[in-house]
């Protein structure tokens, strides 16, 4: 046997595959979209509130899908509740030093916040159709959204939980003994930056699809460009921190990382965005589509390249 570049080469792969890849991607979108919506509600222009509503509309269904993906990935899906309740004592099961344990609780709490904000967004849009829900709508649901005091509290707590959901998945990978994942402490930061860029891209696409001409849209474009730059910088730091472990990417996964994530998912959208701004074209959607593809490919490369060692 050739000398292994790291002690992590002696561990076994946990068989985390597509369910987990999509959870990382969709969970990142849920956290990022909620956070951006909360920032718009707390600090943004009143006229941009429809943009924030889109964020809340994304976050709640995305959390539901995330929970479903995680449950389906279990080898014993019907035991999903063992993550939260200790099976023998029926006491709460909580290990603050286990990212998967805290993550399960965080997803539950984040789900509650996204649900409240989802209802508030529906009420603001006057889209609550159910007669039963309508009875609570005024002023009930609207109170759950800023500028009310309760709404501000929901936005702050939900935003913090959203950040956690967007970033903890990288820390979960780091707290293992697998190649690449546990050979760098920067995956949480990388996933967070990626969640911010992909969420901004999704909100841009949804807003343009809804034909919303909002001043916040141009701001979101600029924010997304900076997040792509941040993601590239953090990815560079990840590569540097891996040292000799980088040889795990001297294969098709490395090619996908360079061409798919860095090229197609970062450099090309940045260039297109820059050109569009110089030409005065405010509403180009291609960069946002590419950023979303790049964000998914990033998770594909990170998960499967380690699984294949």
């Amino acid at each position: 046997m050739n000398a292994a570049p790291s002690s992590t080469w002696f561990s076994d792969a946990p068989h985390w595959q597509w369910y987990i890849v999509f959870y990382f991607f969709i969970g990142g979108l849920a956290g990022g979209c909620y956070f951006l919506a909360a920032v718009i509600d707390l600090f943004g222009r009143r006229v941009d509130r429809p943009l924030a509503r889109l964020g809340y509309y994304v976050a709640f269904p995305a959390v539901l899908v995330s929970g479903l993906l995680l449950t389906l990935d279990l080898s014993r899906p019907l035991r999903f509740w063992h993550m939260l309740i200790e099976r023998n004592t029926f006491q709460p099961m909580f290990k603050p030093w286990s990212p998967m344990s805290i993550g399960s609780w965080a997803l539950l709490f984040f789900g509650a916040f996204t649900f409240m904000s989802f209802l508030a967004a529906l009420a603001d849009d006057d889209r609550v159709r159910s007669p039963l829900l309508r009875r609570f709508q005024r002023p009930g649901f609207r109170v759950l959204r800023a500028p009310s005091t309760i709404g501000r509290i929901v936005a702050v707590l939900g935003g913090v939980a959203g950040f956690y959901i967007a970033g903890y998945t990288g820390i979960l990978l780091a707290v293992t003994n697998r190649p690449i994942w546990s050979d760098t402490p920067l995956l949480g930061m990388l996933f967070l930056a990626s969640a911010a860029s992909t969420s901004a891209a999704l909100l841009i696409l949804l807003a343009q699809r809804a034909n919303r001409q909002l001043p916040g849209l141009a701001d979101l474009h600029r924010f997304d460009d900076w997040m792509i730059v941040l993601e590239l910088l953090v990815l560079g730091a990840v590569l540097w921190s891996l040292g000799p472990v980088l040889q795990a990417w001297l294969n098709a996964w490395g090619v996908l990382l360079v061409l798919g994530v860095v090229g197609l998912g970062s450099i090309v959208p940045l260039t297109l965005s820059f050109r569009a701004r110089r030409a005065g074209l405010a509403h180009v959607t291609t960069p946002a589509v590419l950023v979303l593809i790049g964000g998914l490919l990033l998770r594909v490369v990170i998960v499967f390249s380690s699984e294949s060692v």
Partner: protein
Amino acid sequence: MPEPMGFYTDTTVCIGCKACEVACKEWNQLPSTNGGANTLSGDSYDNTRQLDGMHWRHVKFVEQFPDDRTDGRWLLMSDVCKHCVQAGCLEVCPTGAIIRTEFDTVVIQSNTCNGCRDCIAACPFGVIDINPVSNTAQKCTLCYDRLQGGLEPACSKACPTQSIQFGTISDLRKRAQARVDQLHNAGEDQAYLYGADDKMLGGLNSFYLLVDKPDVYGLPPDPKMPTRNLVTGSVYAVLGAIMVGLASIFHLRDRGAAEQ
């Protein structure tokens, strides 16, 4: 409270008979691979290949032969869960399915495990895997049921050469050190103990006498706890959150009159 119990495996006297593998399978009622169909590895006399959910003992065949096969040697090692004093699997398990017993061994409770597989990624030795029958993570229990009944584990009981020895950790360490001294006196200078002291993960309750580098046996030279990245990873993530948060507020804020 019983003393900490474990295994000391002297690889120099293992003959590769696999009696330990068979005894483990029989006692723990572990199914055969592929319904018992004969599956050969094709490039080694080792057809078990690895520890997993259905193989809690595995006799590794390290075949050190040059291409012309004029010289060479076999290194044989019966591998098993190390029952680490600082166990990464136990640390990350989100359901509490993995417990430390009164014998200081590490056991997965199959009725609690939900198959999240975090423990598989956390184990630095690649010991744990999903058992396809129970669909839960499984590994050696150091025959917890036998220990509770005052019996020794099935594998060490079956070992015909005393390569696998069972006992209290303090007694096993004395026996192992005496054997290392004996081998050194006989001219085998390469003999050493792997995981016998508390420097490696607080001590391995299943430790080994080896005569080559750990990685030759498929053992990590420097196994680490998975939580080593928890604090630094969290600090970097918080730093990232602050950067993203400030950037989002800067770009999306209401600029008021300044904007007009």
